[in-house]
């Protein structure tokens, strides 16, 4: 197992080849104003689970996505690579490749932090 210091920092090429995948446990529904509401189960640490149930703490969290955030989420299907998403955003909004890359990475990070997607990286290349 690699230590924290030995972790491989992905290159641009590796970032772009990665494929985001939706969290299958996220349940989507459309809102009146054409946004998407997503509900994902809340996962408490093992030691807190029974207390959370006993105290009636919420068991799921929900997010609303609209505009570009929603459009990016809609295109996450496990087949589109990050590069495909970057090209789409650049075309759609008249951006340069790297303007779109930075924005897509920001949106994907936001979706990841909320537990809505994961990013499947291709196996890192030999860096030696």
């Amino acid at each position, binding site marked *: 197992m690699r230590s924290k210091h030995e972790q491989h920092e992905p290159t641009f*090429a590796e970032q*772009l080849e990665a494929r985001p995948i939706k969290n299958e446990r996220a349940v989507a529904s459309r809102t009146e104003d054409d946004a998407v509401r997503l509900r994902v189960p809340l996962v408490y640490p093992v030691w807190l689970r029974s207390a959370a149930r006993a105290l009636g703490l919420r068991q799921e969290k929900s997010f609303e996505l609209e505009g570009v955030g929603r459009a990016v989420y809609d295109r996450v299907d496990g087949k589109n690579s990050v590069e495909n998403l970057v090209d789409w955003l*650049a075309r759609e909004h008249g*951006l340069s490749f*790297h*303007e779109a890359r930075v924005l897509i990475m920001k949106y994907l990070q936001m979706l990841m932090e909320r537990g809505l997607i994961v990013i499947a990286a291709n196996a890192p290349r030999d860096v030696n």
Partner: protein
Amino acid sequence: LEPDAPHLERIRPLSLHTFSFTLPRGWEVTAYLLDESDGQLQLYERKHFRGQLVWRKTPKPPDELRIMNEIQRRHLEKELPERAKRFGELSVRKVGDFSFGYSLEGEPCQASLYQPKTSTLVQWVFPELGDDALATIEPLLLSYRPNEQELRRWEMFGVRLALPSALAFTEMAPLPANVAVTFESKHHLTVVARRLGMVEETLRTITMAQLHRALLRQGGARIVSSEERQIRGCTGVYTTYEKRGERRLEQLAGRYWKGEAFLWLEKDERRIYGLEQVGPQRAKRLDLLDAFQA
């Protein structure tokens, strides 16, 4: 995308402290250090590293060939140790004003130029020598122009200005598709140039006037007036504002400086441009729209 789409053409001119270039199509700055005395840019074309531009103030004219040979030797020692043992020195020829140093195909090549007027060494390092690479590198080097005049060009990330040299670059905030470049004179006149993308998304929920007020307030401004008007033939907003003085006694006196700002929408390019200036009363103002380079 069309390679010569207006928004992509717009990011090709590159003018910083003392030099100007026209970047090859598709090349973009992905990392930068913009200090006047020691800076560098990293350039990529999509996921491919294409070159590094480095500049450095040196009090005396440097031995450019020695520096290029040393860079090459260190690269080879790291990447191709066997080849490093056989490396002698680079061949050098002139490409425009640059000395172009090269060795074997597939190895890095370099270009170097010393600007005596500003005591600045400007160097390019390209990752790979080859016919295709040369077809791109040579026009890039030939596009060089010094930028040492009284009226200085500033062109980066699509922001293009011509400003008196008394206004020095102070900082750049490149948020995704949202660039703001700030300049300041020694009399504390501050000029900010903006270029915003994702226009449809940005204006989905607010008007141009609201956006302008929000941008200015983010920088600590107090809005005085705002009116819609045509700016450079485009839909735009003109806003006057005040900002608390930030220098010496001004801070203690709590005096407010007067500012003016333009924001307009270039529909063909799908970009919003903005120009602002604020400073003490005695600081001479610019004709802001004249500073903007189409």
